[in-house]
């Protein structure tokens, strides 16, 4: 888990350095404003119910999150959306790709009510076929 989070943090930093990476400039400013790219410091977006945000977090919550909070959300989604009989929660959908997909979807003007876990499950489903 720690190794993966380190990788995520690295990707986040790399992405922050690249123009246009990961969405609009507004979110980059948000991320920059926090001064930290380590997901261990961030809390996932959305209301936490019974210990998890996964059930209710939606695109409206995503839009309001900082980059770090969104990455923490992807982390939590991945953890929960793998088989409950599996100890390994790795996903065929890489975190950075999941981030991009959620970011793209949630930027649609009608998307605020879409639940993140439903989007993630579908994207994860076809991930091995995507580019």
């Amino acid at each position: 888990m720690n190794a993966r989070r380190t990788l995520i943090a690295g990707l986040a930093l790399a992405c922050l350095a690249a123009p246009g990476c990961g969405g609009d400039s507004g979110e980059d400013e948000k991320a920059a404003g926090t001064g930290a790219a380590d997901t261990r410091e961030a809390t996932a977006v959305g209301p936490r119910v019974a210990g998890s945000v996964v059930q209710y977090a939606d695109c409206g919550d995503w839009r309001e999150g900082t980059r770090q909070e969104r990455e923490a959300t992807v982390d939590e989604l991945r953890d929960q959306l793998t088989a409950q009989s599996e100890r390994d929660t790795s996903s065929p959908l890489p975190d950075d790709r999941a981030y991009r997909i959620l970011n793209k979807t949630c930027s649609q003007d009608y998307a605020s009510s879409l639940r993140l876990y439903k989007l993630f499950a579908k994207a994860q489903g076809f991930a091995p076929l995507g580019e």
Partner: protein
Amino acid sequence: MAHLERPSYWPDPAPDTSVKPAAGGKVPSIRSLTSASNGRTRGKVRVVCSGRKGKESMRRVTNSIRNARKRGYKIRPSQPTIKLTKKQVRDYTRINKKLRKKCRYKSVQKAVNASGNNDRVVIMPGVYTEPESRRGRTNDPKCNPSMIQKDASGSPTPSYRYQVECPNDQNLIYVQGRALAGPPPAAPRSNRQGIPGQELGRCVRCNLQIEGSGPKPTDVILDAGKGYAAGQQMRSPSAKPSGWAKHVVLRVDRGDGFVGRNFLTRGGLEFGFYTEETDGILLDRTKFYWSADYGHLSFTTDHHILQNCDAFGAGDAALYPGAAPETGSQATKFYPDAPRPNTVVRLCDMRGSQLGYSGSMGNAVRITNNHIYGNGGGIASDTLSAAGHPGFPADSSQIDNNYIYSNNLNLYKPNPPVKPLVTTPVGTGIIYAGMNDARVHDNWIFDNWRDGVMLLAVPDALVNGGGAEGDVFPGVSCPTAPGLSTSCGNRFYNNKMGQVPPGFKFPREVDQFDTPRSRQSQKRMPNGNDFWWDEFSGNTKNCWFGNTGPDGTQASVTGPGQAGRVAAMPPALLPSCSGGSSPGSSLGLGDVAKTQYLVDCSNGPDKDTDPLACDWWSSPPKPGSAAASRRHSQYATAAAGFARSAQGRRLTKRIAALKE
């Protein structure tokens, strides 16, 4: 499509004989309202009413009886008006007067709490907001985090104990069916057949019946909503809440032998009605309005009938039987009477929602004699969303004798009347995303502007990050293609596509949210395309036969190779398997353009307008229009070139790798 839940098990399908009569093992039967009033019923009757000494309930029931006699009422918008006879007027009046005298409760939850096995809760007309339940804390520190149950991947879920100890944390009304026993297994068992004995307590509220006493289901409203327009909450059953006080309106947990009858649930943040790990449950004359996720949700539940119902206003699906037991083609000795349907949805209207019906791992569910209309999509059953849903892969669904029409509601726009929570193709009658051994027959499927029926494969590697939930039982139906457990052995026959049933009239409610539809005067109401099949390479035994198209002939059915979509690609026609007699003759040869389309759709909405880009998020053009022809033509041209493109070749390689 899909939701998250504690590690869940299918209950033992045998009756529990520790209570008399035995609980479960079959669908329970209804005890009459008359018997509740005259004492000739087993179990104790507890009556709930509103107003001082039931005055408000009597006022409501008197008005309702008068109204039902004079003007009539409908249980389902698609059905004729029902008027009470003079005898029924006398009966309802007499019964409710007797019930009023027995009324001791103002709260449904309190009446439930006081009940035991075989008891009954009769609710007189009124709107029940359950103020005490609403005051119950969410994330109550009494239960959270100490009663959070971690699944094997470490994800937190509320345990059964959580629900029992903090019943109104998530639920407006909670029915605890069984006593608490020991803790659940430290890690979920991979065999989900049977609730682990260590955590399965004795029956404490088995064979419970909860019912409304008015002539109409809308006379009793169980309401978890808030923020209604002034006066509307009490006056109008279809009033829309702007907020939700609780996640679930009525939850029946391990409540074997439950009967729910003659009421409306409204305004759940998640579900109107929810049952989990229950054996034997009948819902009759029930309505489910304005719950954000699902109107009805049954999960790992057996011997379930849902009938005479009406549901709208769900951001996912109006009705959802998910993780249904393996009583179909993957049945083991655990189900000695298999194959059989474990859940039957019949005589219901599913409307005005993102989906009319949905069910991940909807094994052996029968959907029959319903009207499904005015949704974004009609029916969706999938294998894709396996997380938390035992029963991989979905199989043995049966959809027959339904009217499935005008599912063209586009909620993907600013300020939609129902907030969509999920992304599904607008304009589709039925979607099977990973299904085996289904039977779709004798339905009228018309006026769905994208596709009448879609069938697509979900290779194992695409499921749930690569793993099924719990054991996979024998009988997987694509045995000759490694890594491909769906979609094989499905049959689509004797359906009438794009035809208008004799005497059909649109129910007024189809226009509730301005769903695009054909005019009533049209003699034909074609689908955009009747049958869409992804032709996934290695899929076998899928057969289409005896279906007729808009002009009443088999030749007018549209499908692969038709409708201008993929003109040059095989199959030119849908495999008929010689009228179903030689299913082995059907073999998917692959269509990389269609797979690319699905991959793009899996990545959610965007603004791409490429002909192969996903177009699920907008209203399809009306069939037969110039816009529809143009779209089909553009798609066909792009699809024909895609297989030869570099991107197409890369995708072909990735598809092949999935099956290695």
